[in-house]
């Protein structure tokens, strides 16, 4: 692969994993706008562990653990009040993480932080497949069913004896773990971290990939991240207009296909599928 293609593939893999980080809480109706913060925790933890001689695989795992713990720590107090409060709390959390990282000189501060080990695209793709497999497996379990039920009707689900808060906390925590993985992959592929990269826009894009792809199936975020990473890349020659087009796409898609690109119905209508009665 050429350097350009490798770069695009790496960005695509990171975007897909980040989209799943946003997908998990969204799948039970909670909007996490702090993906960037969890990614930053994963990235810096993994980079620091790696810098102290921990092997690459273990450092990434360490990064994922750190962001999972952070996710749990944020979600337990916040999910008492859901919805808009969670969105704002995660947004604030992400800003705090980025601002703290910018001020800690041991982590490079404003001048950035150099990461030791490099990770090429193939093992990154393997990690992405692992994440994807984990999500597909999770959504086939009882827990996955509970997530969908909570998203469709939280109160109704509670009536049937599901511990709604636990499901929400678990989903947000697992999502935060995925964000940590995405951050660690970013750190080890680009080998350089700066706190300013982990801003609101990064979280926003992760959420957009998941929502534009569709929440009904676990494959939705993959499609969303694929389409909305690659299409703007092919339109690079149009410069700034592609972002305008992206904005228009988001608005129209939400109007015409509010459930996202890939819906259950679409899969159902695919020609090679046997039609159900």
């Amino acid at each position, binding site marked *: 692969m050429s350097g350009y293609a490798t770069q695009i593939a790496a960005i695509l893999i990171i975007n897909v994993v980040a989209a799943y980080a946003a997908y998990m809480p969204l799948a039970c109706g909670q909007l996490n706008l702090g993906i960037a913060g969890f990614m930053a925790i994963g990235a810096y933890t993994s980079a620091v562990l790696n810098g102290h001689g921990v092997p690459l695989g273990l450092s990434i795992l360490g990064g994922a653990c750190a962001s999972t713990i952070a996710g749990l720590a944020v979600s337990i107090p916040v999910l008492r009040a859901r919805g808009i409060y969670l969105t*704002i709390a995660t947004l604030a959390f992400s*800003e705090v993480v980025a601002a*703290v990282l910018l001020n800690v000189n041991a982590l490079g501060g404003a001048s950035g932080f150099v990461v030791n080990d490099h990770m090429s695209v193939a093992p990154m793709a393997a990690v992405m497949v692992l994440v994807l497999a984990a999500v597909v497996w999770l959504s086939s379990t009882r827990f996955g069913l509970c997530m969908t039920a909570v998203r469709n009707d939280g109160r109704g689900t509670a009536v049937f004896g599901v511990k709604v808060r636990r499901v929400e906390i678990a989903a947000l925590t697992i999502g935060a773990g995925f964000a940590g993985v995405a951050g660690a992959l970013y750190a080890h592929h680009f080998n350089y971290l700066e706190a300013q990269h982990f801003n609101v826009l990064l979280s*926003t894009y992760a959420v957009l990939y998941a*929502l534009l792809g569709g929440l009904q199936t676990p494959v939705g975020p993959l499609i969303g991240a694929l389409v909305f990473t690659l299409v703007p890349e092919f339109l690079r020659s149009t410069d700034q207009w592609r*972002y*305008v087009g992206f*904005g228009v796409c988001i608005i129209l898609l939400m*109007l015409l296909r509010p459930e996202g690109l890939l819906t259950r119905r679409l899969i159902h209508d695919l020609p090679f599928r046997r039609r159900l009665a």
Partner: protein
Amino acid sequence: MLAQQLVNGLLLGGIYALVALAFSLTIGILNFLNFSIPALFMLGGIVSCAMLSKGYGIGLSVAVALAVTGGASLIIERFTFRWLKNSDSHIPLVSSLGFLILFENLVVIYFGSDAVGYPSPFGGASIRVAKLLLSLPQLASFAISLALIVTCYVVVTRTKLGRGLRSIAESSVISEMLGVDVGRTVSGMYLISGLLAGMGGALFGISYLQVSWDMGSEVALKGISAMVLGGMGNIWGALLGAMIIAGVEVLTISYVSSEAVNVVVYGLLLLLILVMPNGLLGDRAILVERM
């Protein structure tokens, strides 16, 4: 020195208060975090700046900017409320993000990505009152912000539109049954929040003499913090919260460092939402309780 900083914070707070109020109205009434408000704020600044640099007067420039932001806000209403009824609660939020991306990049295309000096006819005029240096445009902006907030309070509590809005905040279905024209009332609310944000942007330009395509995001985050601090959906809460946030910001810059501002402001926001999610003055008071 301390007094001077506090005065600066107070004057900055006026602009934060307008943005906080614009957010607060949509959250209080529709429970929807409208991410197009930073774009409208930016449009208010950029459009008035473009008109001024073409040689038009300040009055006309601000009027055109307000017409643009009000009109844009009504278009946004179509795509985030009217045509999206009965949809998932994230959908309007995502559409409003779409508008943010759309407007910011259109402005980059037509006005460039560099910060532009704001050709204000008042410049940096200032007066001295008892050792305090007061910038006249900032002072005037603060007075205008305050007047707008009071007007907004009167509209929400004393007019037919306001009564409709408060009933929709309680329940949109029941207020429709009781004869409230939900479509027009919500349009009115979008118009008000668009005008507040646009005016905030124009006043920001007049006060700080610089506008750019990304001026909205930073102010919007501060506005959201102010709104949560005061209590979401609470008009006076937005004002009080904005004063405190701006004061904390200015004091942190002068006594700690400018890099520490975000740690302090967003740390405060996170702490508040964890321990006191209803804010200082109570969540959705005024809008819901005094029916």
